[in-house]
């Protein structure tokens, strides 16, 4: 009980160990400032008026009463934005800051007010009169695709938002040659991102043509570009300041909301700063959520359980706007050819518009759906063939390519390191898989499930990969690190500082990270797709090396040797061939900055690794790498099933082995993996689901929407598997989106192990499990 000491990997001064986070002290003392903690002098409070209808034409908006209310300083509606539309990429710009012609999901923003206090802002909102013409809507993909269904977007027939058809090898032939072919359908629920901090924004115009925006954004350079375009300003006039962020998980805090646009517009109109703090209710009704998906997998195997072919069909509810659905549907398909060898693969994807709040990225983006379906089906296949679930996985797993070699999938995914076999072996050993026994205690049945997964790391997308770092060495030896990379809680700030300190040969405490402020920090795509460690890490490494090289030149001159004969370690600058000749770091920096005649030591670096290798992925054909490298995970989960009520509990017998290449911050990897498994993975498997009725969220609060808590948390053990990927900084790959993908199938398989019942349609909430068990009992009695 109590302590678990993290291991040490590699031979580094700082990396490969448990590195306390650079922002931990500020967070644990309450000093850390999140968006809602910011205040500006003369500030107004803003509020958004939202549509009660899921689908309706806006006939008229009358803001006159609101404008007359004493204390109201500005009102805005969609018309103020002059027809501006935005979206994730050029072709997908279908969303307005505030709805103008019609609303497409319940609580879509239609107006905003700014007033001297929250109470008046709320009152003013209530005084805005909107005339709606309610329209019939579509609320799931099946309604959306029906003949004659109402259209969410005019000009998008059939409500089709994204459609892909990929074909590799010859799936039909392979099925014909298979010993066993199975087709199974699975369903993943509408899941909340789950971040605890509701989004907030403070915006103001210091000059008539400059914006300052302080907001919780995981990808601050999105609002940077979008606001510049929206308000017709040069990028250099848009200043995005990033506070500490209370998590994101890839969704709303990665994207724009009505509050973001409104705060800026209201600040412009009122001539005063405007703060809008949204509520958890707004989050649970409008913020982006994971796509609900219906996944049909058809797989053919040999008698020995070797995979021959898979045909995957995914039907998704994309919600009201396109957002990132093109990427989502690509991700669902792309890694079907990992972590197991798959020679024939076919994919048909359909993402529909519906009158629900938009679906978008969420930790485990895309792969979570298909890896869940594929891995559970693999267990079904194992059962049918009488094979062991661990054995069948080992048989099919891609072996770790030898150094310098690449494994290429049929859809041109390139893998340089793949530790999945080691992950599987280590987890099986940790849970004593071979010796497992059935356990039943009264009405409690126990089961152990196994799964393996992969996740793309260092995601690269077209036209959106620029990732740079600047290092400024101050004259006293302290170092500024300027980055556009955003720490949303995953610990990237710490990793970047650690990398810089490691490369420079100084201490972590010497690095002062300058949080994203687009006035000063270089551009970066942001926190999504597990790209920060890989890409920003590469940029940080290069920038640090660049600064170091400049200093080594000065040192070389001082020592009278060549620059490659000098190094820095533990803040000591020394001649490699004669270490007794050395000087303190601070001394070297002082010499460089003040003497001869006084250099400015600035290191620059940008990431090229991901972009330059193998080109970019082609979404419509399904070929190419979305990731720079790929992480691998194996997990065993034990559950306790109350067979009389259907309630599922996790036991502490929960083990994950994660191949993240090299764990730069060992502790952070563990926390991330434990968290991804429980909050996004297990929770999706057994706890969470938005219940909807014709576009209305029925459980938009934290009592009726079950979030996972401490008492039920398994004390998951994390095993590190090292593969030292050549394309990640210091060998690193992503940490923990893999556990979001391995957890759900391991839980569903565990439930099956305990009860003999397959729950294909998540979440396995008690009532669902109860009826499934009852049905099985009745079937058995016949």
């Amino acid at each position, binding site marked *: 009980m109590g302590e678990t000491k993290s291991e040490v990997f590699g031979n580094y001064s700082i990396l490969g160990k448990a590195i306390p986070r650079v922002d931990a002290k500020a967070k644990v003392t309450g000093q850390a400032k999140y968006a809602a903690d910011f205040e500006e002098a003369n500030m107004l409070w803003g509020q958004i008026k939202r549509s009660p209808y899921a689908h309706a034409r806006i006939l008229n908006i009358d803001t006159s009463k609101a404008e007359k209310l004493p204390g109201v300083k500005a009102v805005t509606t969609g018309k103020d934005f002059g027809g501006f539309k935005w979206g994730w990429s050029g072709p997908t710009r279908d969303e307005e800051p505030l709805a103008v012609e019609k609303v497409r999901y319940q609580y879509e923003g239609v107006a905003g007010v700014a007033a001297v206090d929250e*109470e008046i802002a*709320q009152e003013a909102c209530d005084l805005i009169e909107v005339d709606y013409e309610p329209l019939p809507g579509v609320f799931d993909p099946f309604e959306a695709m029906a003949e004659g269904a109402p259209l969410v977007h005019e000009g998008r027939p059939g409500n089709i938002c994204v459609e892909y058809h990929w074909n590799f090898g010859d799936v039909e032939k392979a099925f014909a040659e298979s010993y066993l072919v199975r087709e199974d359908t699975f369903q993943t629920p509408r899941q909340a991102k789950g971040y605890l901090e509701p989004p907030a924004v403070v915006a103001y115009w210091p000059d008539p043509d400059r914006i300052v925006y302080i907001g919780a954004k995981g990808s601050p350079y999105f609002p940077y570009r979008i606001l510049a375009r929206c308000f017709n300003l040069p990028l250099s006039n848009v200043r995005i300041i990033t506070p500490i962020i209370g998590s994101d998980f890839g969704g709303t805090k990665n994207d724009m909301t009505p509050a973001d646009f409104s705060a800026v517009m209201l600040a412009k109109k009122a001539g005063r700063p405007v703060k809008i703090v949204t509520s958890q209710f707004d989050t649970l009704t409008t913020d982006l959520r994971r796509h609900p998906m219906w996944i049909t997998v058809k797989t053919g195997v040999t008698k020995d359980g070797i995979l021959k072919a898979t045909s995957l069909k995914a039907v998704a509810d994309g919600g009201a706007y396109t957002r990132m659905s093109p990427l989502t549907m690509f991700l669902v398909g792309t890694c079907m050819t990992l972590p197991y060898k798959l020679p024939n693969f076919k994919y048909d994807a359909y993402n529909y518009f519906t009158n629900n709040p938009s679906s978008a990225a969420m930790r485990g983006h895309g792969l979570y759906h298909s890896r869940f379906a594929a891995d559970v089906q693999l267990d079904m296949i194992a059962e049918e063939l009488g094979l062991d679930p661990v054995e069948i996985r080992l048989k099919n797993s891609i072996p770790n390519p030898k150094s310098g070699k690449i494994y290429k999938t049929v859809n041109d995914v390139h893998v340089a390191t793949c530790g999945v076999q080691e992950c599987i072996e280590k987890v099986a050993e940790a849970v004593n898989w071979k010796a497992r026994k059935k356990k039943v205690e009264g009405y409690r049945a126990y089961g152990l499930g196994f799964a393996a997964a992969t996740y793309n790391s260092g995601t690269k997308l077209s036209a959106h990969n620029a990732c740079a770092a600047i290092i400024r060495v101050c004259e006293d030896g302290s170092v500024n690190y300027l980055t556009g990379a955003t720490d949303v809680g995953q610990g990237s700030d710490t990793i970047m500082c650690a990398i810089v300190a490691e490369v420079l040969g100084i201490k972590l405490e010497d690095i002062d990270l300058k949080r994203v402020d687009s006035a000063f920090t270089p551009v970066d795509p942001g926190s999504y797709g597990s790209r920060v460690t890989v890409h920003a890490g590469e940029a940080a490494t290069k920038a640090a090396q660049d600064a170091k090289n400049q200093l080594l030149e000065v040192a070389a001159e001082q020592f009278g040797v060549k620059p490659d004969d000098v190094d820095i370690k533990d803040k000591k600058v020394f001649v490699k061939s004669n270490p007794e000749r050395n000087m303190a770091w601070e001394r070297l920096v002082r010499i460089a900055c003040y003497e001869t005649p006084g250099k400015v030591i600035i290191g620059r670096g940008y990431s090229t690794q991901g972009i330059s290798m193998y080109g970019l992925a082609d979404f419509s054909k399904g070929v190419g790498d979305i990731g720079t490298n790929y992480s691998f995970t194996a997990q065993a989960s034990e559950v306790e099933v109350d067979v009389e009520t259907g309630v599922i509990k996790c036991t502490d017998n929960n083990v994950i082995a994660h191949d993240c290449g090299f764990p730069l911050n060992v502790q952070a990897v563990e926390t991330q993996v434990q968290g991804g498994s429980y909050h996004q993975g297990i929770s999706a498997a057994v706890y969470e689901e938005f219940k909807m009725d014709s576009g209305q969220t029925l459980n938009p609060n934290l*009592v009726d929407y*079950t979030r996972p808590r401490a008492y039920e948390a398994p004390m998951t053990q994390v095993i590190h598997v090292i593969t030292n990927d050549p394309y990640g900084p210091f060998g690193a790959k992503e940490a923990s989106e893999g556990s979001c993908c391995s957890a759900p199938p391991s839980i569903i398989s565990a439930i099956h192990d305990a009860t003999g019942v397959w729950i294909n349609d998540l979440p396995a909430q*008690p*009532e669902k499990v109860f*009826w499934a068990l009852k049905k099985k009992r009745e079937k058995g009695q016949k």
Partner: protein
Amino acid sequence: MLAAFEYFAPKTVEEALSLLSKYKDKAKMIAGGQSMLVVMKQRLLTPEYLIDIKGLTALDYIKYDEKQGLRIGALTIHRAIEKSPDIQKHFGVLSEMEGNLATIQTRNWGTIGGNLCHSDPAGDPATVFIVLKARFKLASSGKERIIEAEDFSTDYLEADLKPNEMLIEIQVPNPPPHTGTAYEKLMVMKGDMGVVGAAVSITLDSKGGCQDARIALSNAASIPLRAKKAEKVLIGKTINDGLLTEAGEVAATEADPPNDVHGSAEYRREMVKVFVKRVARLALEKTKAAR
């Protein structure tokens, strides 16, 4: 953010009652506010007058007497009931029930009186008090009356509490010898409101037959429901597994459970069967320990 109201913080019970007499149903009384502030924040409740009785320490007490039994002041916090040595020793079921009531933060501020007056059919305390044959003392200016716990809730979120009345004390008689009482509810997370719950109290006679039984259900109707027909299945008989199953099934027919995101009415009925049986078994086990 709450809507504005006129606020009073009476220092004595008499003062509180006189305010209630004055403002009647224009006023709402707030104790710990753990249920009330949620609905006030959502603007579902916007009283004009708010009478804050949280500071009425005179109603914060737990008294145990070998003859009189237990008397709990209405403003006693849940956590005090949970941790009271007297209650743990003599009315263990109350302490166990409190241990699963919401979370510690709520129990540190919310009061037993506030919980009972909120009259939520999913309420754990009311359900347990029914099987403990508790009585509630209600007061208004110059008057007091006693009401049986099972008669207090009248409908969903409604209680037999006149606009000028307040709950001041809960009285729990000492259980007869050979009595065991238990309460369990269906939770996904510890501290959840139960999807359903069952409280069962069984008193055995000297020969081991069931002398008396009380069964009450939470979240299985619009009020915490006493399942009288189910009780009759057990009373006067020697309890065996078959009878427990029957009691559960009968209780399920008496229930009229809600349909919501946590469970359908049909599922809840099935769970009534499960929980009545399970909890009755636990109560039986406890009779062995009772003097």
